[in-house]
């Protein structure tokens, strides 16, 4: 082995250490009295001597000696800490954690009112239009941007070449807005008055709420990609008389963990309660649209959908029923559609109470989950397998998810039509 400078230096210090810690093994007969010697018991390690602090720099703005500000000196400092939530909070336990936070019972599938509307809206050339939308987003777009590196779990050491193509964000935008355009025309063909009452807003801003959960302040700043609004509130999935009888189940517990484990704790925050689209005539949210521009699992995406739905309804409830602390006089509902690259996810949320602390209560909120409605299979290239697997393949179309989307967009369309007719007749009189 080559003796390097580092080893030579460490050898010297080791000799020094050994010489310092030597002890006598054989005591002489006429030893001196031990009462003069102090025995030191080892309870703590020696702490390194603190280095002298360097002198302050000559220039006050020198970036080499930058020291970040303390929390008390930054703006919006409050003594009571708060937990913040935003789009990038990833729930570690998924929908279980979100259900405990929102005190909601979980059901799988579509609610009954929406299940009845499947297959009631007709779209001519349905499969051709859906295939066109898919191929537009995946193949025919002319964008050429550097895509991130690919890794295949079947062969982790294989190095793919860098490719140029369509980024994920653009794919989701093209797919989702084509689908919603087809759905809205199908609904408008049957109920033509919905074109006056409904609106679609892109990137609404300013949605925020705050509330107390187990003696801690939570502050929500919710981000949504698009929203369909209407002039009247959504009718709830479960009417008010049956709420108590249906909320007889129990919510599972996540004992050593609290559901705010993934929130960000700060002392600098602002509290705000607002909905972004309250200054227009159609101000009640009908469906929220979220685009999954990330690599999360479907469970985590559905949890994000639940929490955004809860935040939007809370902000609305605080405005319509100011000063409320428990059960609402009238339940409120909203629908959420989650769009990922090859599949659609749906959540339906109904808010009955605002008291989220008490888990053993007569009244609870309800949530319906319908995940992973796969529309088509996308198989990426795996060149180590052979010539057949060299190119990407798009196979096996499945239209079940699209029919559920038509049902969600067409929910409560007949009510709006009858209301507008009533409204127009009043004006005539």
């Amino acid at each position, binding site marked *: 082995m080559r003796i390097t400078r580092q080893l030579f230096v460490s050898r010297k210090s080791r000799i020094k250490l050994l010489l310092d810690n030597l002890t006598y093994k054989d005591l002489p*007969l006429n030893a001196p009295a031990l009462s003069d010697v102090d025995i030191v018991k080892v309870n703590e390690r020696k702490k390194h001597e603190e280095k002298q602090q360097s002198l302050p720099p000559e220039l006050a703005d020198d970036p080499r000696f930058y020291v970040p500000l303390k929390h008390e000196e930054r703006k919006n400092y409050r003594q009571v800490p708060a937990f913040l939530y935003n789009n990038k909070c990833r729930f570690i336990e998924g929908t279980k954690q979100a259900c405990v936070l929102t005190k909601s019972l979980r059901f799988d599938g579509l609610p009954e009112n929406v299940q009845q509307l499947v297959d009631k809206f007709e779209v001519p050339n349905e499969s051709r239009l859906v295939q066109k939308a898919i191929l537009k987003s995946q193949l025919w777009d002319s964008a050429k941007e550097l895509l991130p590196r690919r890794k295949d779990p079947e062969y982790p050491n294989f190095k793919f070449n860098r490719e140029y193509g369509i980024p994920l964000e653009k794919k989701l935008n093209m797919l989702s807005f084509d689908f919603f355009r087809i759905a809205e025309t199908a609904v408008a063909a049957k109920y033509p008055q919905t074109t006056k009452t409904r609106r679609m807003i892109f990137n609404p801003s300013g949605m925020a709420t705050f509330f107390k959960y187990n003696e801690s302040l939570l502050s929500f700043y919710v981000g949504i990609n698009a929203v369909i609004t209407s002039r009247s509130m959504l009718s709830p999935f479960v009417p008010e008389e049956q709420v108590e009888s249906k909320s007889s189940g129990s919510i599972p517990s996540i004992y050593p963990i609290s559901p705010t484990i993934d929130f960000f704790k700060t002392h600098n925050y602002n509290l705000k309660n607002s909905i972004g689209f309250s200054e227009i005539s159609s101000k009640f949210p009908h469906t929220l649209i979220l685009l999954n521009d990330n690599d999360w699992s479907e469970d985590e995406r559905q949890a994000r959908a639940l929490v955004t739905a809860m935040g939007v309804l809370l902000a609305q409830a605080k405005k319509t029923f100011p000063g409320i602390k428990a059960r609402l006089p009238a339940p409120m509902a909203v629908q959420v559609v989650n769009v990922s690259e090859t599949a659609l996810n749906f959540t339906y949320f109904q808010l009955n109470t605002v008291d989220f602390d008490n888990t053993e209560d007569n009244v609870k909120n309800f949530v319906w989950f319908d995940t992973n409605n796969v529309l088509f299979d996308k198989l990426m290239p795996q060149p180590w397998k052979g010539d057949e697997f060299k190119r990407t393949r798009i196979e096996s179309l499945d239209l079940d998810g699209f029919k559920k989307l038509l049902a969600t967009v067409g929910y409560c369309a007949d009510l709006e039509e009858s209301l507008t007719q009533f409204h127009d007749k009043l004006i005539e009189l």
Partner: protein
Amino acid sequence: MGRPETPPDGKYTTEPLRFIRSGGRDLNGKVVNAKIGGGPKVSWFMRDSNYPEVGERDEKVLRVHPDPVRTAHLALVGSGNHKRYIIAHQNVKEGDVITTSCQIPPIPVRAVEGNAHPLGALPIGTIVHNIEKIPGEGGRICKAGGSSALILRTLGDKVVLRLPSKHEMALDPKCMATVGQVSNSGHDAIPWKGVGEKMSSGYRPRTGWRHRKTGYHGRKIKPKRTFIVKPTPPKYETFKLSGV
């Protein structure tokens, strides 16, 4: 073979941090060890080997995955509003619940894998890891993959352990330790596949093909050097007195 980029706050985070490889270079920039160089880009996770100073605490295992920088696996563990990474023991799964307690009852505690107790509370014959040398300091011994220590006996005020190097050590019974063996036990039994695997993981070869031979090359036959010189105790004149 490198150093991590610690956060400027100094606080604990669970986020992956940048790991800067040294390349065998010193602070001055010169090559100190020529057998290090290259290797993949990895991320470094802050691993917490301290024991909390409360009476009792429950924690839940959330994720388990291998560590690219260390030989032992990592386990993400959470309780309340705090998450941290700890050393994973051999048979760990997602969903387990781990307890730590600082109390020493008169009857020894039944040892369950994964729990942490002080050494005075555990019975003789238990296998432990992540042991403290001084109480309150943090785990120091047996943190590598597959290692473990055995509790042999009590010696008066102290507890005697057998370490993986077959030395015996006497420690304070208030020192904390976790029960079980560290994960990834067979990592040193897997041989290297060849030079390519070693080079791609950050090791460089010892020498090249042709080098000028000097007096340093060849078999070395030298006398052992006298390393430590113990100072001898002073000599006293001894007299034997006979009673007359």
